[in-house]
């Protein structure tokens, strides 16, 4: 475990160094740039309104030339702030292999918005489309914000916590196919698995049992 602890210590040191540097460059909003708890890389929270300025600064001045990943977290209905957008930056030249995690909370819990960084890193174009597709976070200033993995016109945001694992019944994207096949989008049959479990740490055996989520059959009523 000693090696892991050393890594954590160095990344904490690198994290406070980058935060000090950001405080210096963004002195007006210094109190809003805070360290973020992290098990590995340096991580920093920034205000949503200044995210683009901070990220541009990190790319142009601090040498984080690649946007490794962009995604969001849904902290579930009722939590506030509910949505957090996370950027993972990577330096390939100045300090090869140095990652930095930047996170910003969306101001609104019902209509989340975040400024787009597609103009800084072109790869953000698709990442933001995916995040919009899965969470419904609108990236303002995005050149072409459409769904990317689900089809245009799909009514739900699948990675939101209230969206059930099995899916939701709905209409097929193509009315012609739907008319011909007379079928709908049907929720996945969950009988016998997968062995559903929930995050949080407490063990709930009735939930972990494979049959628990499928109420269409049990010991008394026969399976269809």
């Amino acid at each position: 475990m000693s090696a892991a602890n050393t890594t954590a210590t160095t990344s904490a040191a690198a994290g406070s160094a980058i935060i000090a540097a950001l405080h210096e460059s963004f002195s007006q909003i210094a109190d809003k740039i805070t360290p973020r708890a992290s098990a590995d890389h340096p991580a920093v929270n920034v205000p949503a309104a200044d995210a683009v300025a901070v990220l541009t600064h990190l790319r142009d001045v601090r040498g984080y030339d690649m946007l490794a990943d962009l995604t969001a977290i849904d902290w579930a209905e009722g939590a506030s702030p509910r949505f957090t957008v996370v950027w993972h930056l990577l330096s390939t030249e100045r300090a090869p292999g140095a990652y930095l995690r930047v996170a910003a909370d969306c101001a609104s819990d019902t209509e989340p918005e975040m400024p787009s960084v597609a103009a800084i890193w072109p790869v953000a174009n698709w990442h933001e489309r995916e995040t919009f597709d899965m969470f419904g976070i609108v990236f303002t200033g995005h050149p072409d914000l459409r769904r990317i993995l689900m089809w245009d016109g799909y009514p739900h945001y699948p990675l939101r916590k209230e969206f059930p694992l099995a899916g939701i019944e709905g209409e097929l994207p193509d009315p012609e196919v739907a008319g011909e096949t007379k079928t709908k989008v049907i929720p996945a049959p969950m009988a016998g698995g997968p062995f559903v479990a929930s995050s949080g740490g407490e063990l709930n055996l009735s939930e972990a049992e494979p049959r628990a989520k499928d109420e269409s059959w049990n010991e008394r009523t026969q399976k269809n």
Partner: protein
Amino acid sequence: MPPTEYTFQDNAAKNATAAAGGGLPDDTPIFDTEKMSLSMGPSHPSTHGVLRLQLELDGDTVTHCEPVIGYLHRGDEKIAENMTYNQFVPYTDRLDYLAPLANNVAYAIAVEQLAGLKVPPRCEAIRVLVAELARISSHLLGFGSFAMDTGAWTPFLYQFTEREKLYTLFEELTGARFTTSYTRIGGLARDLPEGWLGRVSAFCDQFLPRLEEMLAMLTRNKIFLDRTVGIGVISKEDALGYGLTGPNLRGSGPSFDLRKDKPYSGYEKYEFDVPVGTTGDCYDRYLCRGEEIRQSVRIVRQVIKNMPDGPWYAADSDEARRIFAPRKDKVLTKMEELINNFMIVTAGPQMPAGEAYFEAENPKGALGFYIVSKGGGVPWRMKIRSPSFCTLSILPKLCKGVMMTDIVSILGSLDFVMGECDR
């Protein structure tokens, strides 16, 4: 998108217009330049899976290229939020299904990074070994299907023979040829079978001459050169901006390789070179892959030579015992181990609350896992950073203005997998 209707004036009508003195304006081109839209895929032999390209063509020139993805979307990230960490290992097989072992390794290391868990040297060495064998297997198919797309059948068939030998080795090691599910959080599914390292070594010995034979069929092949040199050039700035990783990035010049620049699983112990391209065209990406196979063989030989003895899973601390299930013989004879096994299987390997992001240098590029945990055996959120997804996002820019036939070369040279792109 509404269907486009195309109308073509027939010759008689054109002649009639000219005879009536209407004529054509002087700047009217001789040929009809009406644009055509073409849907390439999702079932097209050179789109390697279910990628669809919505093309707009002006004659043979592509004026607009819009990739349409999602045909293979299975909601892996949603599934991950609903099962324990070890239960997700089989799903990682199905990301880049041409290198499942490398995905298994990347995923296990990501979760261990979240837990702050260190695995023993033997476990690290075995992981490096299988990840490099997976790289050989994936790159073989990568350049084999690329060759086939550009008209060369023989390398494709030759490399399948070699991949078959690798699959036989994988089957002996993991019990499955394709869906290996070999790693566990904190260790592996099982130790190496007896004599297996010798068979891997024998494979390497006979493989290298075969590899040179396959590459020699392409490297100076006039047809292959004509189809790839100067085609699909990606500048260094574009490669970085579009988040390209792996051979697709290095083909454009940057020598960034996570195995060198952010070593994990003990890669710093092995000697190998990182090949880079100069122009960033399809040919450079092919050359990079070819050389990476040679370097992988080099790493495999070093791992075999220096394979450490000792435990192959983490079991030396209380944290480790809450993560890696005890041995079966102990489960069946000791009460404490039985309880521990029950807890790990039902509640999952116990993780602290926190966030971790880990990228591994996979054959297709950097495969990343971002895990947000609230503690316990199930992640709150898991994002899979797919290298193929980022690679394909450059297509609208890369394919603008190229010939329709060059799209086939470009797709082949980018070596993507839709299972990973769509997740």
